[in-house]
């Protein structure tokens, strides 16, 4: 099947000038050669720690920033080279939901104005009354009533504001949404409400979703596939269950072991990272994770490992950027083995 989004060797570098008269130039390689395909109707979780480039990748896919190089094939067409005007028809097809809805909603605009504004640009054929009706319907879809229309963002709780942020993204009937940490600022019980809302709109509207977050449990709940980023590169990408039960990259193993679980009883063994995070201006040669990896070999410094099919029968859609296939990494969840017919010895 042809993916809705196919990004090929995508790079987003930010040059930094320093030295005498700013002549030496270095670059922060926020996204450095990412290949990622997203199928129609799929939810892909993008996890990583701060500085991994996950938000930049999301913004670049949205063409909020022009990539340094590489392509973003959106529904068969490379949109990375398009002009502002050329992008216009695509803007309607993809939308973004941000972490803090308070800073992405205009505090002086009523909810109604915030919701109908995108339609003025993207659907100028609609009358004011039609725009209002659309807005009311969308509000209802996200669990708010029309009585919210005349109110301002500050009158709502964090969870309600995030619903408004989602409603605004839905106004232009997009097919693809990038949600950047949309539940990170919310309390647990509210976080669950918003996650359920994402699941339900994804179902009813058939949305394709890139869910960017640092929270592995959230990704485990919402995503069909998970990509793990470190220093601008994808370390591992796998169907969600497989990532939790059979991680193939040491960084994934470390992340999974570090995430605290709400369970009493003996603590899981923690896989510690060595050393300190490298400078993004001067990432390690070869594998970027090798300076922190417990399994690094001299070869790891030689060449940057490309994403390749994960070893040991992990399935065709499981990829890792680790050279080693002799590792037995600790899973976050052990699958209770299904009864099997024993093969006679």
């Amino acid at each position, binding site marked *: 099947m042809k993916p809705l989004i196919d990004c090929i060797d995508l790079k987003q570098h930010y040059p930094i000038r320093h030295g005498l008269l700013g002549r030496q130039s270095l670059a922060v390689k926020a996204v450095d050669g990412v290949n990622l395909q997203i199928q129609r109707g799929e939810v892909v979780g993008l996890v990583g720690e701060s500085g991994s480039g996950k938000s930049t990748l999301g913004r670049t896919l949205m063409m909020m920033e022009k990539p340094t190089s590489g392509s973003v094939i959106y529904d068969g067409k490379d949109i990375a080279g398009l002009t502002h005007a050329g992008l216009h028809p695509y803007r309607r097809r993809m939308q973004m939901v941000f972490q803090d809805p308070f800073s992405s909603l205009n505090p002086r605009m009523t909810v109604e104005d915030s919701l109908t504004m995108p339609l003025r640009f993207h659907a100028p054929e609609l009358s004011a009354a039609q725009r209002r009706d659309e807005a009311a319907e969308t509000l209802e879809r996200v669990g708010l009533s029309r009585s919210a229309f005349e109110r301002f963002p500050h009158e709502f709780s964090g969870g309600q504001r995030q619903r408004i942020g989602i409603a605004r993204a839905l106004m232009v009937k997009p097919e693809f949404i990038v949600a950047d940490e949309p539940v990170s600022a919310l309390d647990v019980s509210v976080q669950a409400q918003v996650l359920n809302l994402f699941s339900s709109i994804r179902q009813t509207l058939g949305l394709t979703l890139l869910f960017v977050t640092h929270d592995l*449990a959230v990704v485990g709940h919402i995503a069909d596939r998970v990509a793990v980023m470190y220093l601008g590169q994808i370390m591992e990408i796998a169907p969600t269950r497989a990532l939790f039960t059979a991680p193939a990259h040491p960084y994934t193993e470390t992340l999974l072991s570090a995430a605290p679980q709400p369970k009493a009883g003996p603590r899981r063994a923690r896989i510690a*990272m060595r050393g300190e995070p490298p400078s993004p201006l001067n990432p390690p040669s070869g594998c970027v994770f090798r300076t922190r990896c417990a399994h690094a070999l001299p070869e790891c410094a030689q060449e940057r490992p490309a994403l390749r099919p994960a070893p040991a029968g992990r399935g065709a859609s499981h990829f890792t950027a680790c050279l080693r296939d002799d590792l037995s990494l600790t899973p976050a969840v052990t699958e209770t083995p299904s009864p099997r017919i024993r093969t006679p010895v």
Partner: protein
Amino acid sequence: MSDPILSVRNLTIRFKGDGRETQVVHGVDFDIHPGETLALVGESGSGKSVTSFALMRLLPEAPRCRIDGQIRMGGTDLLALTEPQMAAYRGPRIAMIFQEPLTSLNPVHRVGDQIAEAIRFHRKMDRTAIRARVLELLRMVGIPDPERRMMAYPHEMSGGMRQRVVIAMALALEPELLIADEPTTALDVTVQAQILDLLRDLQKRTGMAMLFITHDFGVVAEIAERVMVMYSGRIVEEGSLGAVLERPRMPYTSGLLASVPRFEDAGQSKGPLGTIEGFVPSPDKLPAGCSFHPRCPQFRPGLCDQRMPELLPHGRPAHPVRCLRAPDLSLVPEVPA
């Protein structure tokens, strides 16, 4: 059991503003024993941070804020102390770390000097002794190359390293009680894991007690032996880690636990997460009866909206629960642990 190092009785906090008085903490009681870690869990607006600020006497002075009740530490009521007397407690007896280490550090001073200042304020020590102590502390909190790092400014360090500096500063005078208010919330998971390991390890070495304030049940499970759940300014459930996480009796606690996505279910469609409808009521508009009743799936009209339940032991083995329906509810956690 040993005598508690801190005893809070009937702690009540009211704020005054706009000609109104708003009560945000309603008669909180608890004890902390030497060497134990007590977690105080709640959502925003539950009063957990205000409670911890009151213990340190960091809330504004009267008349803007009125604190009643007792906070006893070794026979002294901290609420009865003058400000200079209280200053002698902060540091040597009771110390606090916060979510954002940058707010606890002065951006224009070297971190080593800031730790040294905390020591100098309370102890008569000469420069070399203080320097040695600063190095020892930095080493203790796992900062590599402390001789060089003590000369650094806060902005030159990563978030995790800064939080280590703040912990070093808090522990400089070997307090009996460390209050940690969401100390890992702003950190990446791998760094959070390191800081939690560090706090646990330091506690083992120094025998200090910890009051750990967080909204994250995962963190609670990592660090605490005992848990208090707070809602709308009251403790609503209290017990051992196992009791609260696996045998919750208060519908609020079980609702919170059901709303946390679990690793076990990752990638398996287990249907929607459990939610608690509505939101935390504003402290000046608390509903009559049990504050949780408008959101409670177990709400019984004529009972829960009539009077505030007391915190009473329920379950087997029993632990304190504030719920009128606790006797006739057998709440199994909605997510099997």
